[in-house]
């Protein structure tokens, strides 16, 4: 057999491998695309938070929360997550947990847990323009707010 002869199968192997590697790489780039910021915020009519570790919420964000009644907002916890396409992550924020799963594009399924128990499943769109706030009453006329934003 001619030693310079390269079989068609061998010839096709390299481009095929290249295509495969490229597509995996592209998929990884696309998958790491969605970054979300999840914050547990505490709303109060008081002047300060009982926990000194809580930071006063960014004024621009406080303004955005103007639809709520509280005078002051404090960040209890803040996490940033990267979601792969259709991926899911569970985040612990103090005594509550949120499991976020990307369903399709900007649609997410969010499961909220309080003290380990399932509280509510929410399916909503989260985009750079539209954030999601999951809120509820807390003791002493205060409130907790889980704010999820695309960053």
């Amino acid at each position, binding site marked *: 057999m001619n030693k310079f002869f390269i079989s068609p199968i061998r010839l096709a192997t390299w481009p095929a491998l290249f295509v495969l590697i490229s597509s995996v790489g592209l998929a990884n780039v696309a998958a790491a695309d969605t970054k979300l910021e999840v914050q547990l915020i505490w709303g109060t009519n008081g002047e300060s938070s009982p*926990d000194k570790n*809580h930071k006063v919420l960014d004024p621009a964000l406080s303004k955005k929360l103007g*639809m709520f009644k509280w005078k002051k907002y404090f960040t209890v916890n803040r996490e940033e997550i990267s979601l792969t396409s259709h991926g899911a992550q569970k985040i612990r924020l103090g*005594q509550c947990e949120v499991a976020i799963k990307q369903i399709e594009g900007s649609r997410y399924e969010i499961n909220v847990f*309080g003290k380990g128990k399932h509280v*509510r499943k929410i399916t*909503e769109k989260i985009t750079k323009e539209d954030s999601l706030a999951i809120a*509820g009453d807390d003791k002493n006329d205060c409130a*907790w707010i889980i704010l999820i934003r695309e960053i």
Partner: protein
Amino acid sequence: MKEETKLKLQAYLDGEVSNRETRDTVDLLRKDNEAQSLFAELQFTKTALRGNEMEMKLPESRDFYWSKIRREIERQPKELARSFDGRWWKPAYARIAAGLAAGCALLMISFLAFNAGTSPSLPGEMESTGEEMGAITYHSNADGMTVVYLVDRE
């Protein structure tokens, strides 16, 4: 019918629901008789009230009513009044005393709460019934935010 569904029917009537919830509500109204009756009741109450507020007449003469306003305006210098927020006939020292008392009370409460080893409220502590909670969804275009407010099912 769940509490949450009833409130959604009302929010639909008031035009305060998101597009998705509008579809769900229209669907519910098509299928559910109970929802239809409740919606009709809410609707006629709303319609009856709109534009049908009793027209009231001030039970004092124009001159008498105005004389009291004028007297008060003249009594209070504009600048001073700007920082004065309250009923004008109440003496200012009563307000100051009330403020001081409220401050002291707040200090006392904080002191007692911290000494008892508990904070007035624990941020991030979510009360859970163990069952799914109800929710009211609200979307604000202006703020670019969807709010899901969780409420205890009753």
